[in-house]
């Protein structure tokens, strides 16, 4: 196997004297989809922001392509790694096309001049995600699912090799969750994108991701295939709930849900 795109080792991070990440190591390679799981407040968002270099780890190291994340120039980094936050912002008056164009910010020349190439990328991505008809519409008119797709498109316009998403499913219904997951999977498999996404839906993540990482109070409680991580014992302990597991015939990954009896 080639060297991983991202290699993070022994990360520790605290907000003041409140430790959030105690000891987290993880890797991310091109072409794989990794889901970050765990209860609220367990450090998923913090971990993502440490990986992006927005927060500085108290201890440990984040290497992107063998270079420390804080040593990357911001613009160069933005051409390699895109980030979709939990609640992305947009001016309601802004048109979809304008939002997508800001994805080219890391490539703009002086005075924010766009090249023909920048314009072409925007329309390519819009076509790929079926957003062409939405381009002239203001953001205020879009549904939650459409909005999320626009923000995903803005990330892709950056032409990244890695995409970090913080709970992209928060405002999506089931169909749009599956749709988004499948799109991400296709991008990973067809274009070699590395995808790391925080999620709350254990089963959906199990079905769509190549690998799961389960965080528990700032440490990795379990990591690996869905079969290995979605273990009632492990998950039950992390969430403080009795869990049951169901193996579906003809399906590799198991289903898991709280035992409410």
């Amino acid at each position, binding site marked *: 196997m080639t060297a991983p795109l991202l290699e993070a080792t022994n990360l520790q991070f605290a907000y003041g004297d409140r430790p959030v990440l105690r000891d987290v190591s993880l890797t991310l390679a091109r072409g794989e989809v990794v889901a970050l799981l765990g209860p609220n407040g367990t450090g998923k968002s913090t971990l993502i*922001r440490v990986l*992006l270099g*927005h927060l500085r780890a108290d201890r440990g190291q984040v290497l992107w392509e063998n270079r420390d994340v804080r040593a990357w120039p*911001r*613009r*160069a*980094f*933005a*051409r390699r*790694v*895109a*980030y979709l*936050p939990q*609640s*992305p*912002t*947009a*001016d*309601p*008056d*802004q*048109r979809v096309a*304008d939002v997508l*164009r*800001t*994805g080219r*910010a*890391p490539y*703009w020349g*002086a*005075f*924010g*001049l766009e090249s023909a190439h920048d314009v072409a990328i925007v329309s390519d991505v819009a076509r790929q995600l079926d957003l062409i008809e939405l381009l002239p519409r203001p953001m*205020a*008119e879009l549904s939650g699912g459409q909005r999320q797709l626009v923000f995903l498109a803005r990330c892709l316009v*950056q032409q990244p090799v890695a995409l970090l998403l913080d709970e992209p499913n928060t405002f999506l219904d089931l169909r749009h969750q599956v749709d988004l997951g499948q799109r991400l999977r296709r991008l990973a498999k067809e274009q070699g994108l590395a995808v790391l996404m925080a999620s709350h839906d254990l089963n959906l993540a199990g079905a769509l991701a190549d690998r799961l990482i389960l965080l528990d109070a700032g440490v990795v409680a379990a990591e690996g295939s869905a079969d290995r991580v979605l273990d009632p014992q492990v998950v039950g302990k992390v969430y403080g709930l009795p869990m049951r597991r169901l193996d579906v015939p003809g399906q590799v990954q198991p289903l898991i849900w709280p035992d409410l009896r």
Partner: protein
Amino acid sequence: MLATLVIALLVWAAVASACMLVGSTGHIGIPSDPNIRRFVLPYRIEIVLIASLVGAALGAAGVVYQAILRNPLADPYLLGVSSGASLLSLLWYVGALATISVSFQAIGQQAFAFAGAMLSIGIVLLIASRRGRIEPVTLILVGVIVNAVNGSLYLLIYFRHPELVARGGVFTFLVGGIQTNLTRQQEWLAAGCVGVGWILLFYLAGQLNVAPLGEAEAEALGVRIQRLRWAGLVVASVMTASVVAISGPIGFVGLVCPHLARLIVGSDQRRLLPAATALGAALLALADAASRYLSRESLLHTQMPVGVLTGLLGGPFFLLLLWQNRRRTEATP
């Protein structure tokens, strides 16, 4: 982007030429006597150019303030620039009256106003920043407080000096107008500040599109958001200070022009900045011509500063904008 720049320039040029038809006494038309014309025209050109300079700076600074402070109600005076200028202008006036020394007067009210504006915005940035980081909401709060303190100090000084009350004319420092007593040097200084500042802002315009986003998002798009906030606010404030120094505070231009420009060219800062600049220049030149006309002996019998007019017209106009905007957003839930 280039097209917007050219069209904006043409629109301004057209309006500015029209404004030159209004004389300082409110008389409309160009005098037929060539001797009078030779005397009057350079003077009119100067007035229209100064009004344009002030309006352009306010329009451009308004765009940048609104983007960086992420607030559609922000204007270039929000962080204390104008109240600081007014306060030090008054101090200068008190000093000038008391000492009657020529050297004190020679420093000039304009220099004091500029110093006051920079001092005021400096204090706001100093209080609002934490470890070099500035955050829009804190900035606005500190700006409002500093403005209030400046206003109170202004009144305190005013009432402590009865000779000011008797003399009147002190309100010029509160409501601006296009002054005609400027030296060439002052004019060129202001024009230089505005010109250089504008080019810097235009250079940042692309990145300013990202400024209204969340901090993490902007960083993820490769924009150093803290650096952008500092650069944008400092440059816009210096521009504002240099025109407030020569004109005093003229309300609503910096608030209304960015909104008006947004209606015409959309929200892309690279087009918004030139459009709002030209609109500011054109509208203030127009408002100044209108106030000269209205100040005619037969109408108001007094010299009305243009700041009064922009306030009177700008307020209702802005309400109209707000109202329309609300109707539109209510129609699309």
